[in-house]
């Protein structure tokens, strides 16, 4: 069997010490009637080359977006991942360590988390950030639970243009508690309907969720309603894309109490949508209600700078049923990648990334809007993602493009029903060249000629 050390002599000697004749005797603590006699109905073990052959065959049955020309987004984005980032986090010192419960032997992981917290804090302009959440969706769900606990209120207002996959998770997370979700409609410009928000806000409102850019790529103007939300005693929960914060006003500056988001785009693989990594940041006054792990700078007994897990009394292993959350294992290694990625790009590279994404997306949007029959669904400003209104149904556009090796985007009918039949969500990033844009436009042109029956 692979991955064990013991020789027959080792096993013999160990059994001797235990006064046993066979290893079977050790399993006899399991009552006879439950002990499996034969082997599980799983095939027998294989050699490494056999396993690799089998799995590369399976890998080859996929057509990964990285090998096509992809304009998919919807919360998961393909950006350049620098070699240095991949290399650092493949080190076993990071990948095979555990949660840093013994700080003296875990300073590497602890300091990385501290730097992650700092990066996130600077991006969001909120003073507190935690060590990571499972993904952007559960981070938002936990933020809603946190807001309900802080305000002792039970209604959370969510925008219609919220990522529908986040909404599903938020719904499941709050379903066990007496929390009600209410949808705030979207205006014809694609952003939150402030009049409807005004109507729904009352003394039962725990939080108003604002996602910006929202699922349609549209940028919201939370600063226009933030004061009203706070005046009603509710919290502002911002769900945002960290890459967009390279250019856009940060949540802390428009009064968000809690900010959450997905850090996959920060140097992590798409990997069919998992593992992902969420972040959560908040105002100082809410630090003790925050879920998840937090690292603090401190000193050791010799006065040396050191790092340590802190405020653990919020967490499940100490506080049990009174914990702020049940999260234990989080997404450490992906947060590590995000940390190295942000450090490596730095102030300059990260700003550059945002600028390129915005420039690319606007160029593509302009090219598509100039095509016969195609237009942009919303006039509102966007960052690197936008909704295209197609002359035919978006599914058939996607199908035509796919025949030419392209993933044109996400048909919105997938999530928003038949009225969104012609709408296509398109993303551009630093990965796209002008040739890619031309190719997409050619495919779109062809698709508009396809007769749908």
């Amino acid at each position, binding site marked *: 069997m692979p991955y*064990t050390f013991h020789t027959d002599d080792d096993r013999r000697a160990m059994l001797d010490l235990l006064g046993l004749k066979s290893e079977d005797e050790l399993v006899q603590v399991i009552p006879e009637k*439950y002990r499996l006699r034969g082997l599980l109905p799983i095939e027998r073990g294989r050699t490494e080359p056999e396993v690799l052959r089998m799995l590369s065959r*399976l*890998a080859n049955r996929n057509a990964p977006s990285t090998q096509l020309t992809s304009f998919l987004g919807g919360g998961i984005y393909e950006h*350049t991942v620098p070699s240095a980032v991949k290399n650092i986090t493949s080190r076993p010192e990071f990948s095979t360590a555990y949660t840093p419960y013994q700080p003296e032997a875990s300073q590497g992981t602890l300091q990385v988390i501290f730097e992650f917290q700092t990066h996130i804090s600077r991006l969001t302009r909120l*003073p507190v950030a935690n060590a990571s959440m499972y993904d952007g969706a559960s981070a938002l769900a936990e933020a809603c639970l946190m807001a309900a606990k802080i305000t002792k209120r039970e209604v959370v207002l969510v925008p219609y243009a919220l990522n529908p996959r986040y909404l599903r998770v938020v719904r499941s997370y709050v379903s066990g508690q007496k929390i009600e979700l209410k949808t705030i409609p979207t205006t014809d410009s694609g952003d939150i309907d402030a009049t409807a928000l005004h109507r729904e806000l009352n003394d039962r409102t725990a939080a108003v969720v604002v996602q910006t850019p929202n699922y349609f790529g549209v940028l919201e103007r939370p600063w226009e309603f933030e004061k009203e939300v706070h005046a009603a005693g509710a919290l502002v929960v911002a769900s945002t894309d960290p890459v967009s914060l390279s250019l856009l006003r940060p949540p802390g500056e428009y009064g968000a109490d809690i900010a959450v988001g997905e850090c996959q785009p920060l140097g992590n693989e798409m990997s069919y949508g998992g593992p992902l990594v969420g972040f959560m940041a908040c105002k100082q006054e809410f630090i003790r209600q925050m879920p998840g792990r937090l690292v603090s700078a401190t000193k*050791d007994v010799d006065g040396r700078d050191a790092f340590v897990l802190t405020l653990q009394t919020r967490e499940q292993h100490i506080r049990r049923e009174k914990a702020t959350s049940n999260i234990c294992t989080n997404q450490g290694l992906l947060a590590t990648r995000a940390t190295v990625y942000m450090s490596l790009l730095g102030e*300059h590279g990260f700003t550059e990334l945002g600028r390129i994404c915005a420039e690319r997306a606007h160029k593509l949007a302009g090219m598509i809007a100039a095509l016969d029959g195609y237009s942009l669904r919303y006039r509102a400003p966007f960052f690197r993602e936008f909704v295209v209104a197609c002359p035919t149904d978006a599914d058939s556009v996607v199908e035509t493009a796919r025949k030419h090796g392209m993933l044109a985007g*996400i048909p919105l009918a997938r999530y928003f029903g038949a009225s969104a039949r012609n709408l296509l969500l398109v993303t551009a990033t630093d990965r796209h060249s002008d040739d890619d844009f031309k190719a997409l436009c050619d495919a779109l042109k062809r698709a508009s000629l396809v007769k749908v029956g």
Partner: protein
Amino acid sequence: MSAKDFSQTIYGKSRRGRHGYHISSRPTEAPRDIPREYLREGRIGLPEVAELQVLRHYVDLSTKNHHVEKDLFPLGSCTMKYNPKVNEEVAAMPGFAGLHPEQSDDDAQGALAVMHALEQALVAVSGMDAVSAQPAAGAQGEMLGLLLARAYFADRKESRHKVLVPDTAHGTNPATASIVGFETKTFASGKDGRVDLDTLRAALDDDVAVLMLTVPNTLGLFEPHIGEIVDLVHQRGGLCYMDGANMNALMGQARPGDFGFDMMHFNLHKTFSTPHGGGGPGSGPVAVRAHLEPFLPTPRVVEKDGKYRLDYQRPKSVGALHSFFGNFGIYLRAYTYITRLGADGIRRASSTAILNANYLAKRVAPAYPVPYGERCMHEFVATGEPLKKHGVKTLDVAKRLLDFGFYAPTIYFPLVVPEALMVEPTETEGRETLDRFADAMLQIAREAAETPDVLLSAPTKTPVRRVDEASANRTPVITVPMD
């Protein structure tokens, strides 16, 4: 906190105007198409460091970690086994790593086949009827379990409010119960560290929705009356959830489905060799019996005539816990491990894990008694109580172990053992390593008697010595302050 200059952080190494990594070969301009009102002003405040500096910084940090490839990581309940390299090679294959989750099922047939095959393998290991791999970690698996229970009872027009856990339960069990809106009721373990049937009977009533039980329990003990325990709960109309964090003891030996459990979670990052990553990512698939299957989260991966698709049409489903399909990259690693070991290797792995734990327990017991029982399964809980007379605590033993180049066991858990040291060596350690560790433990016990200061001032060989947690708790410093 006293002055801290943060010069050793990446921020301390930053110099204005230094560039790390360029995305573009051309100079970029501020966006023209986004109105000013939306744009951030001034600097973000990220560091400015060169690529080699970044590498040196993080390579240096990495050397300050203990990790599995350095030496034994005997952390109980965490199954810190070897994380095979081939797993990483598979997860990095471009055909998998480069898939976008919004691609069509046709484009993802290989990925869906792996998801399906993994779920089927876990069905086999659990002896249950269906598996959803979606939860991102064990705790989220528990959450799914309790959401399933809630949906199941709602479907039967029953309303039950309580979750029962023994006092040996992991913290995530009661914490999860609260999140899902259940009230936790904790009951005392029996004198033998196991569930006492009379105590359980007394704790049970018609308001109990779920009993959550870790098997083997967090003392490393199998519950000999597991069948009766499950029956008692079922007789009162409740469901039984098995916390499967300790499946490394059971896989290939016995199946939770045969014990009568209704549902359970796996921790792929423990039992199935996927790396812990300094705190994740993990993966917490949930296995259920047929009566709970209709409530599983969507999408479900289904197979027909060799073709796979994602199915969202499950009207009774509890919804979703993850943005997409869970931690797919972890499925790849776990599935690689399962195919590599096979049914024979899986059985051999668990029996070796049990052998290693019993051997180690026997070797350290002269100095650190194991209060509950002769025979453990894959882990054991010893006590540092005898050392207290020398003014030495379990914490000091843990810190001293770091000086020997080992990580420390899980300490002060489970709560029922005073001065607990919970040790899980796993099957991927050899006898020499176990002996070295046992020798270190015994030497530390001698030091406790002869030179207790050595323990009280340990560790001295780690990158930093004992750190001040108290002041961090009083005034946490969570970030490098902006200048």
